[in-house]
């Protein structure tokens, strides 16, 4: 402990002030910063500093060798809990990875209650904001073009790569890269920040600075532990300690790290089959197929589902991987307005009645592709309405649950579980293991006929590497701990193969025969209790942050149940300042900011990804940070009925539990 150099956190302000690059409005930024600094110092008490004593009383101490705990400055409440645990409370997780939160009030169930209004309120900002946003883009474009023009004239060597040279056309035309060079580069400080360690409740940033306006970055050699409200770690399975990590270690020792080859060409392990059965069982479908990359799950299977003569109807905000797959398939595509069921129905009536263009032949298949939870908007698919339409119009339905699987529903089974829809009524469910399960890759599930067809027709089976066994163990361990493992006595009466096909068991526990015998899950995991706690903590945190931010006066998009909480910032110039200010607080918070082209031009936003690993205090930290920075940057344009931040924190439980 003593050998470790002191953490850089206390000196961050003085260190960074001179190094931060803010081409937009340096003066206002500096004043904001000093204001912030003063506030942070005067407050002091919020994440109350704890003596290092609490270390020894919780399990945190057992992981002293982990990189997680190599800075013991806990005044920011990141490495050690702000409230020391009592003697009855035993925490098995590392606080920096998975927060200690024993208070049972801070739990909620993620489920669609009858009478829940589906439509989220979308608030419009004042015209002043819209106008300044448009103006700032206009200004950026004008300045960018002027700089390009002048630069090409006076400093041709810096623009060499944009011009034809020696008979080669430029690799990157100046028109195509204009946005990247002239806008994104200004914000680059907020993107692709290198990290180290576990992307759990907290994450360690490698500090960097740029002396040449973000053309290059140099590492300063220091590191900052930040509260991580940006990784896709919904259920908090990004852990280097605990039952899942133990299982993965055992898996690595037994299986090595790779499967060496595509599934159909000698890369087919027993672990793949076991994992697929477990996934199918988890989803509530007959069979499932696993791919080694989430993006490729869509891009390599959609071409095997539809082809020429088929129609894909796609939500306008669908993910790039879906568009990639559809484009490869050769099917026709039509889009409907995001989540607009009337637009969808109208479109369906039109395409079915018109048939294929020119020939008017009926479509062979119509496949509707939607996402369960939209990663930029935080909106949920209106599943009940789509299921109604499905009965009437007979289309096939493909739901991409990349973000919703694990994160929604009382049993973590995704949108179907959340809305209480039988998953077997949905033709195809796709999802990834990156987000909720702390692994990587993706799955496709459906009927056995369908999945077998995809095994032989999907591109991944014949050409792409099979999933690594280490990843498979993580998937199985985390999934089993959400499901809970069935008591071997009761499950021995049913035969192994039939269990998977038994629909009545959904959403049941994982049968023991689907878990490899060498798995030694601790009781807290195999009972499913910890999994349930994770689900309930996530549901609480998500609702609390979403509602809390609205109450503070921010414009927040998306469904309150969504663990993705987008908070609108609008002006592009505020994006990276917001991100910077969050990182430079006393308790640093790392956030994701996104602007055009990932979002529409005006609605640049900060996107918070809530996790089960966060404690209620962590949400308080985020709320306080947003409150203060929101005042500085003038971000509060939402509802006029506002609460003070203290009131929000005080009445958190009430806020979460009231139905709106």
């Amino acid at each position, binding site marked *: 402990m003593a050998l470790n150099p002191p953490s850089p956190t206390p000196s961050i302000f003085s260190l960074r002030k001179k190094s931060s690059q803010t081409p937009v409005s340096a003066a206002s930024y500096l004043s904001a910063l000093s204001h912030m600094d003063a506030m942070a110092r005067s407050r002091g008490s919020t994440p109350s500093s704890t003596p290092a004593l609490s270390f020894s009383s919780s399990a945190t101490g057992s992981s002293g060798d*982990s990189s997680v705990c190599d800075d013991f400055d806990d005044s920011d409440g990141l490495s050690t809990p702000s409230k020391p645990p009592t003697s009855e409370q035993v925490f098995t997780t590392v606080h920096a990875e998975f927060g200690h939160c024993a208070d049972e009030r801070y739990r909620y169930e993620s489920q669609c209650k009858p009478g829940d209004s589906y439509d989220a309120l979308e608030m419009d900002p004042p015209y002043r904001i819209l106008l300044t946003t448009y103006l700032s883009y206009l200004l950026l474009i004008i300045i960018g073009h002027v700089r390009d023009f002048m630069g090409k004239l006076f400093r041709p060597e810096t623009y060499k790569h944009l011009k034809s040279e020696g*008979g*080669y*056309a430029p*690799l990157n035309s100046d028109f195509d890269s204009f946005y990247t060079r002239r806008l994104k580069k200004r914000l680059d400080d907020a*993107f692709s920040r*290198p*990290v*180290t*360690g576990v*992307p759990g409740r907290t994450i360690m940033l490698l500090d960097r600075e740029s002396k040449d306006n973000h053309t290059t970055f140099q590492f300063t050699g220091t590191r900052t532990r930040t509260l991580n409200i940006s*990784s*896709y770690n919904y259920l908090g*399975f990004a852990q*280097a300690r605990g039952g899942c990590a133990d299982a993965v*270690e055992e898996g*690595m*020792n037994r299986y*090595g790290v*790779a499967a*060496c*080859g595509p*599934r*159909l*060409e*000698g*890369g*087919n*392990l*027993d672990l793949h089959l076991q994992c697929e059965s477990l996934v199918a069982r988890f989803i509530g479908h007959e069979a499932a197929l696993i791919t080694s990359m989430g*993006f*490729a799950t869509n891009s*390599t299977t959609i*071409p095997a*589902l539809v082809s020429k003569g088929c129609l894909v109807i796609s939500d306008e905000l669908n993910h790039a*991987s879906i568009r*990639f797959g559809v484009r490869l398939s050769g099917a026709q595509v039509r889009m409907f307005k995001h989540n607009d069921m009337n637009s969808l129905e109208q479109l369906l*009536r039109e395409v*079915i*009645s018109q048939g294929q263009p020119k020939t008017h032949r*009926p*479509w062979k298949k*119509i496949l509707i592709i939607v996402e369960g939870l939209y990663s930029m908007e935080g909106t949920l698919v209106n599943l009940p309405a789509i299921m109604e339409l499905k009965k009437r119009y*007979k289309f096939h339905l493909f739901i991409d649950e990349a973000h919703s699987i694990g994160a929604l529903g009382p049993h973590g089974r995704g949108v179907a579980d959340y809305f209480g829809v039988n998953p077997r009524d949905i033709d195809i469910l796709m999802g990834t293991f*990156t987000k909720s399960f*702390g*692994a*990587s890759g993706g799955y496709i599930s459906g009927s056995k006929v369908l999945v077998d*067809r995809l095994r*032989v*027709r999907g*591109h*991944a*089976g*014949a050409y*792409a*590497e099979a999933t690594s066994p280490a*990843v498979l163990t993580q998937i199985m361990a985390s999934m089993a701990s959400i499901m809970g493992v069935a008591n071997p006595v009761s499950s021995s009466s049913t035969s192994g193969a039939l269990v998977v096909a038994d629909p009545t068991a959904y959403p049941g526990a994982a049968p023991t025969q689907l878990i490899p015998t060498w798995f030694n899950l601790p009781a807290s995991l195999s009972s499913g209790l910890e999994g349930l706690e994770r689900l309930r903590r996530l549901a609480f945190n998500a609702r609390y942050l979403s509602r809390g931010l609205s109450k503070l006066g921010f414009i927040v998009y998306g469904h309150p149940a969504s663990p993705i909480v987008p908070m609108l910032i609008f002006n592009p110039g505020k994006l990276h300042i917001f991100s910077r200010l969050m990182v430079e607080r006393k308790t640093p918070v*790392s956030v*994701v900011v996104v602007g055009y082209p990932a979002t529409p031009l005006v609605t640049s936003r900060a996107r918070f990804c809530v996790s089960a690993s966060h404690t209620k205090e962590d949400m308080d930290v985020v709320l306080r940070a947003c409150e203060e920075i929101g005042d500085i940057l003038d971000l509060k344009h939402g509802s006029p009925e506002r609460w003070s931040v203290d009131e929000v924190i005080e009445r958190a439980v009430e806020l979460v539990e009231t139905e709106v």
Partner: protein
Amino acid sequence: MSTTEATLQHVAAFLAYALAAAEDVFFKIPGSHVVARYVKSSHQNDPGRSVLELILIIFAIRTLLQSRTRADNSGKNFVKYTEQEIDELVDEWTPEPLAQPLDPMEQAELDSLPVIQGATGPKPKLASSGKTVLNLASYNFAGLAGNEVIKERAVETLRKYGLGSCGPPGFYGTIDVHMSLERDIADFLGTESSILYSQDFATISSVIPAFCKRGDIIVADRGVNFAIQKGLQISRSTIRWYDHNDYKSLEEVLQGVEKERKKKRLPLTRRFIITEGIFANDGSLLDLPKVIELKFKYKFRLLLDESFSFGTVGRTGRGLTELYNVPATDVDMIVGSVANSLASCGGFCAGSKVVVDHQRINGTSFVFSAAMPAALAVSASEGINILRDAPSIMTTLQENVRAVRAVLDRVDCVIIPSHPASPVIHLQVKPIPTTSLAPPSASSPPPLKKSLPNSVQPYNPQSFDIIEEERLLQQVVDEALAQGVLITRAKHLRGQELIEPRPSIRLAITTGLSKKDCEKAANVVKAAFIKVLSKRR
């Protein structure tokens, strides 16, 4: 009467007030005075002009407001139906089922898929029989699967980083170990920089469209693998094909492209040659110096897929550039696999800094996908270290390849299109020489005909009976498995490849097996071939 008058007055007063307020607000907008002055003066000079301007503005607004994905119901092809008719059509429509059940052959293929129980490696155990077999199917060229040092490092990393990266590289998914692997790959190959993708198949199909857009020209080999074909499809570029590994044909196509551009006076667009180091579909080797010469001569950029040559050829496994002693910087983009020889997962693209940085924003599957797990990145770094420190690995690999080839080259009923140095060996069935003249053999091509660069089909497509050959090869695979050697047919998506590759058995030679084992395995394969093929007809 009076009440209406009063209300009218009320309305008029309100209107006047609203107008004044609107004016007030309008003049508060910065720059509004300029607009007002302009409108006033233009109206004074020519009242007709302000009307025209107004119409123009309205038209502009209308155009802007029209949705971009407007329904295609204005065309003459659109048939108007009443609501009732639509209802009937909806009731009538019956879609095809989403997936057809597998036919018996496909089912048999799926059922016959060997399942490896426990760790894979040179001698894995099969789940079906519980027997240990010699593995010539899995990609484990450098024998790194199951390497204890790698495992140890992977576990260490797991305990420090957890497993998943939980985010795309742009959003806190760039872990320091990714950066060091990127540096390791770049240093190993001798390029400026490199970028990691999290699956090898998704790498090149994403790299191609990152650079090649509509209007750009790609000259590609007719034998390129499926991933490249998909990349070409996504890119929407103009594609010209040259005959597989035929450099005369390549030169002609390159000349043709330049000629066409000059003739039509087209602007200079980006031009690429895309080919593979060791071809996945037949194991043949590229003559890199020749291609580099042509590329410089005709000013094309070269995108080289080294998925199977990285980590398998060259003194220390640096791939084709090391084999031919060509500086890697002469190849603009080297795409390779981290999964095949390094026995980890993912793929990379190495090149200059400009090339790599461009992909960090434009490589679709880089931007929109989670970064690879830290433990796997560290495994790959460790793999590179091992390759670098132990050139004996590559020597052993080549010895094993030679041992296997020595046995198989002497089998009469087999064609081996693969290069003698390639650790990927494809074995095809030699057709029975028939007395009829029917199939024109490759040895006497019609002299005057040439393939058209615009079409992917060559002038002399090989003719073969896919179903029959696959059936025979599957029998060989089954026979070899019964004798304790795991091999596999090269699996292809029939009907989806641009040119159907000839059915083959694909062997992947590994250093993990001793020379004796390799010879033994090769003899088993040989015996299986002879046994199965002697029975036909």
